[in-house]
């Protein structure tokens, strides 16, 4: 028997219904350049700070450039990624519209579920009728056999009386 459709059925299928951690993981897997870029940007800053501390201004300047470049690349990856994968397009739809769509989807699921149940009930009825028919047939055959048995018994009786 299938489950009753509920509000929890759709969770996990849409980005909005994912938990925070799932969403972050999903984004990191979908756009791996963003976390990698952020980490590299931090590394560039650390190297620049180290060189400033050691009084090496030119080297620090070099890493500052890397910092700006990497951060720009990360930002481009973030924006481009979300445009490619269309996660911003979903958010552009109004909240009301999304809710209406979800309600419609749930309604469809309910109708499907009810139809499934209807079919199951019909099948059960059919099976019950079939078995009823089969029992009647069996009963009839049993009656036949009983008749035959009685006939045979009476035959045996008459033959034994004749011998006597």
């Amino acid at each position, binding site marked *: 028997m299938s489950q009753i459709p509920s509000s929890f059925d759709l969770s996990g299928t849409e*980005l909005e*219904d994912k*938990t*925070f*951690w799932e*969403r*972050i993981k999903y*984004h990191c897997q979908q756009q791996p350049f*963003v976390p990698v870029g*952020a980490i590299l*940007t*931090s590394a560039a*800053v650390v190297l*620049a*700070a180290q060189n*400033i*501390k*050691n*009084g090496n*201004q*030119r080297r*620090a*300047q070099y890493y*500052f*450039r890397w*910092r*700006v470049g990497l*951060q*720009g690349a*990360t*930002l481009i990856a*973030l*924006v481009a990624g*979300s445009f490619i994968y269309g*996660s*911003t397009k*979903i*958010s552009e739809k109004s909240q009301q519209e999304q809710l209406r769509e979800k309600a419609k989807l749930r309604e469809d699921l309910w109708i499907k579920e009810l139809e499934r149940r209807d079919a199951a009930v019909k099948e059960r009825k059919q099976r019950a009728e079939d078995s009823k028919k089969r029992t009647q047939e069996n009963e009839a055959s049993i009656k036949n056999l009983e008749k035959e048995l009685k006939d045979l018994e009476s035959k045996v009786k008459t033959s034994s009386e004749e011998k006597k």
Partner: protein
Amino acid sequence: MTHLERSKHQQYPFHMVMPSPWPLMVSLALLSLTMSLALTMHGYIGNMNLVYLALFVLTCSACFWFRDIIAEATYLGNHTIAVRKGINTGFLLFVLSEVLIFAGLFWVYFHSAMSPDVTLGAVWPPVGIEAIKPTELPLLNTIILLSSGATITYSHHALINKDRSKALSGLLITFWLIVIFVSCQWIEYTNATFTIADGVYGSVFYTGTGLHFLHMVMLIVMLGICYWRMRNYHLTSDHHVGYETTVIYAHVLDVIWLFLYIIFYWWATV
């Protein structure tokens, strides 16, 4: 060299500081600022007068202290290479503590976001909270901040290559870019549909981005001082500790903003 003559010279590269009232003044001002802020926030004090007083005393003491340091560095020549190295290390430790504060705030955010309470509707952002759209004002802010990183790097490049006018103009552009960033952030805060009192989402959002906002305000002050000092020929191509620390501060805050933008604005809400 006779002993008498040697006694007239300093035999070590370090700066033996003179007795100064400012460390004590700043400590007391910070203590009263913390106390008055905490008492005001928890409703024990009904007005902001004590907070303003503490802020005023803190600002004055800091100004006098920095005036002394600038005099020691620029006019008395106390900032030798060894002293500069010490100051830079000290500033890097300060920056590290800042990074750790933000790490704590990210922890708070993750803690609240990863298992939202049933009273929030068990979703993040909570039911009824309309999160700020990351593709609107925050994206512009990010671009402004990135540009400020580029202009400050341009200014630093010009400074170490002895190009005064380019170093000054780069610094001025950076200053105004940060002013624009702070203004945009202010507009974003005043137009947001939720406040710091609107549940845990409002609290963690404004604490994280608001602390960054306060740092940006401080960065404006630092950049302004750097500009003023550079205009007055305080900085040379190889002796500009205040400028270097400001540049590092700006870069680190930029990177923190990148993480804030990705986590707080973009991926947590879309």
